[in-house]
């Protein structure tokens, strides 16, 4: 099989799995997850083969694996769809395939496969546990198990489509499929009002970004007549785009298109100011949070910007905006994360913050650094989310054991000391957390973050560099806070004492992802690290070759290395120091209302957008326009028609039609009927006789008449 054919086939298994599960397998839980995991495995296999072939192909950046077909005829040309794997696509495909497969496997355990049906579980709510024959409370299987696998399969299809597509149109299709799946999966437990609201919020918020993105795509198509990367990234096309001015903000066409597309990313990757949906999206099941809201879908936003980098980078204004948004988001989300108590919310804000890092890196032109951080982040953030899911699962076990359902299994202040109860989870979580913090030398996060710092420093973006350094310090701090609160110290509740390790289907993905969280960074060790002369950076060479001009690597700097060591180790140490002995929420000094309430962004949006919109809808549209104006006109017509009608009725209808014509015909009919009544004797033979006589008479008459003529 040629590589191109294989690339076409990669997205297929998940969509087939989706239809198979929805149409046929939805009765059998085992069959459903077998199909879904099997499909994910097939896609993984295809992706791995493609990846291996990609790294073995020299000059892949110039001649990527590509194949396309004509799809829609437009006036004199064709709208083409196709697949393309260049070095960037290959590495994205690599981590997407791995995380998707891991998360699929993890979901089997997370949804308690093999456990009995719940005592009073209903579809639409998380399972409440079941009692076995000994009266013990054990976790119960998810009632909508098959549906979950169908949805994540569809999601995987969307993600793979997005990665392998060679044009913005199919990318957008995958993008929107993922948006739909995100909506469906956040609202998976639809009987929870909070989940429903979160689903709607996520969908609506990303929709804002998507509308702008669609505008950008449309603009791009009208400007260039093509949506395929190959055509757009031709130097002459880019040059033309860069030189065409637009009336908006004095941006060039390229800048405006880039900005519009970037707004799509803001929505998808939860950047300020459209970040509000991501924390709420934690209402979904944890594998969903891991996959959609950490590893893949939100990465897709960043991926798109990286993908469109040649276009976006044409306009310095756009780049400035991107750098600003990314940097601001990074620090802003990090400060919120510090004050969150929910284990998943911390990770959610951390995700926003880390995505901000990537965006900021792109804003300063650090193409490879952004891609590198995208890959490493996907691994360690998926690991962290899955680890948190494992922790929650363990805590739920404790909750089931004690039967005290008041205890929130997601609140970190209810945990503590879990390292002994859940060793595998602890160690993998620790690795993930250290990777997130950028623990020096060992972890992947260090290398990718370091590269971002180097680039920001090297290109002279001082403000970006300092802000990101602070954000990185906060990152290390809240990560250590989380680890300390969750795993170290002594159990703060009985539930935490009774938590225990989860099944292998959940821990095995953790271990695999943990190994990636460590190893994935080693491909990006800078060439002149510590002034040594190492091998050329493989990742830089490989991904950088995607661009027509290989970006130069910023030179090594001791200042940067020192900064990154200080912020990482310092943040970790401070976090441990502060939270070492914290026993309850009250002792936490960082429960600042401003941070705890996320800078009141939901309230601000409510006041600025939702309330006015509601008011406008109610007062202006409904009360004034609808009721007063339109209804008034209609009522006027109605009244006028009624008046005319009553006049007509009184003088024409009643008088002429009823009295004369109506009653008159009735009377005549009655009279005729009365006199004709005897004919209807009810005797069939008499009827026949009469009709026969009439027939004979008419026949005779006709014959007579015809004979005369």
């Amino acid at each position: 099989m040629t590589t191109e054919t294989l690339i076409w086939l990669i997205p297929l298994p998940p969509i087939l799995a989706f239809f198979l599960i929805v149409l046929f397998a939805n009765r059998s839980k085992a069959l459903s997850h077998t199909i879904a995991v099997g499909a994910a495995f097939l896609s993984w296999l295809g992706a791995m083969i493609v990846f291996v072939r990609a790294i073995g192909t020299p000059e892949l950046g110039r001649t990527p694996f590509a194949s396309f077909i004509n799809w829609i005829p437009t006036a004199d040309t064709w709208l083409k769809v196709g697949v393309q794997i260049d070095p960037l696509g290959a590495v994205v495909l690599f981590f997407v395939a791995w995380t998707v497969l891991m998360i699929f496997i993890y979901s089997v355990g997370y949804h308690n496969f093999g456990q009995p049906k719940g005592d009073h579980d209903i579809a639409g709510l998380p399972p409440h546990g079941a009692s076995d024959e000994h009266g013990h409370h054990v976790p119960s299987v998810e009632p909508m198990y098959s549906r979950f696998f169908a949805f994540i399969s569809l999601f995987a299809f969307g993600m793979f489509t997005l990665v392998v597509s060679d044009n913005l149109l199919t990318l957008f299709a995958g993008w929107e499929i993922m948006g739909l799946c995100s909506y469906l999966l956040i609202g998976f437990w639809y009987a929870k009002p909070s989940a429903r609201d979160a689903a709607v919020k996520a969908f609506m918020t990303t929709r804002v970004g998507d509308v702008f993105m669609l505008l950008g795509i449309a603009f791009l198509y009208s400007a260039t007549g093509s949506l395929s990367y190959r055509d757009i990234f031709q130097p002459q096309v880019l040059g033309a785009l860069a030189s065409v001015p637009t009336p908006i903000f004095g941006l060039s066409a390229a800048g405006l298109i880039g900005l519009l597309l970037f707004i799509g990313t803001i929505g998808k990757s939860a950047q300020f100011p459209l970040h509000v949906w991501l924390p709420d999206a934690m209402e979904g099941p944890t594998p969903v949070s891991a996959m959609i809201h950490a590893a893949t879908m939100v990465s897709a936003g960043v991926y798109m910007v990286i993908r469109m980098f040649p276009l976006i980078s044409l306009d310095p204004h756009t780049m400035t905006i991107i750098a600003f948004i990314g940097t601001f988001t990074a620090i802003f989300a990090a400060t919120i994360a510090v004050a969150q108590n929910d284990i998943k919310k911390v990770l959610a804000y951390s995700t926003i913050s880390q995505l901000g890092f990537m965006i900021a890196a792109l804003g300063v032109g650090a193409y490879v650094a952004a891609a590198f951080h995208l890959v490493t982040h996907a691994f360690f953030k998926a690991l962290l989310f899955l680890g948190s899911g494992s922790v929650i699962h363990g805590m739920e076990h404790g909750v089931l054991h004690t039967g005290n359902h008041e205890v929130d299994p997601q609140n970190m202040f209810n945990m503590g000391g879990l390292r002994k109860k859940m060793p595998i989870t602890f160690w993998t979580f620790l690795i993930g957390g250290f990777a997130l913090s950028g623990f020096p030398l060992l972890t992947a996060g260090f290398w990718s973050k370091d590269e971002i710092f180097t680039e920001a420093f090297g290109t002279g973006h001082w403000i970006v560099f300092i802000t990101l350094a602070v954000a990185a310090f906060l990152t290390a701090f809240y990560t250590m806070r989380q680890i300390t609160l969750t795993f170290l110290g002594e159990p703060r509740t009985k539930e935490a004492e009774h938590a225990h390790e989860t099944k292998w289907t959940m821990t095995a993905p953790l271990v695999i992802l943990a190994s990636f969280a460590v190893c994935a960074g080693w491909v990006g060790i800078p060439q002149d690290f510590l002034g040594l002369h190492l091998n050329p950076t493989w990742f830089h060479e490989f991904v950088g070759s995607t661009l027509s001009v290989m970006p130069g690597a910023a030179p090594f700097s001791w200042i940067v290395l020192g900064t990154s060591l200080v912020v990482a180790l310092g943040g970790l140490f401070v976090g441990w120091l502060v939270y070492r002995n914290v026993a309850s929420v009250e002792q936490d000094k960082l429960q600042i209302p401003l941070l705890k309430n996320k800078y009141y962004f939901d309230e601000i949006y409510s006041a600025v957008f939702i309330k006015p919109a509601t008011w406008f809808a109610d007062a202006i549209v409904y009360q004034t326009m609808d009721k007063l104006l339109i209804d008034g006109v209609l009522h006027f017509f109605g009244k006028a028609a009624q008046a005319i009608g009553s006049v007509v009725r009184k003088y024409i209808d009643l008088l002429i039609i009823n009295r004369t014509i109506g009653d008159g015909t009735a009377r005549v009919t009655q009279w005729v009927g009365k006199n004709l009544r005897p004919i209807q004797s009810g005797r069939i033979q008499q009827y026949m006789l009469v009709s026969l006589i009439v027939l004979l008479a008419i026949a005779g008459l006709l014959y007579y008449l015809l004979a005369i003529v």
Partner: protein
Amino acid sequence: MIPLSWFLILSAALFSIGLFGVLSRKNAVAILLGIELMLNAVNINMVSFWRYGDVSQMAGQVFAIIVFAVAASEVAVGLALVISVYRRRNTVIAEELDLMKW
């Protein structure tokens, strides 16, 4: 050879006898008997026209068969009606079944 007119006259006579039966018999079943006679008269005409016309045109025979089908349906439904009426009204005299009058 028998001329066509013989068949036609026979069928006209049979038809008229059937008509008389339909008009005159009191019993509903007997009325249906008359109808059968009339249908048979029609069929004789059909078949003889087939025979005395172009025998390769099967329309005459085909419609004779369709008349068979119609006759069978008519008898089945008609007799079912008669029996049903007998159950309810205890009579099959057509003149007494004059419920549908003014």
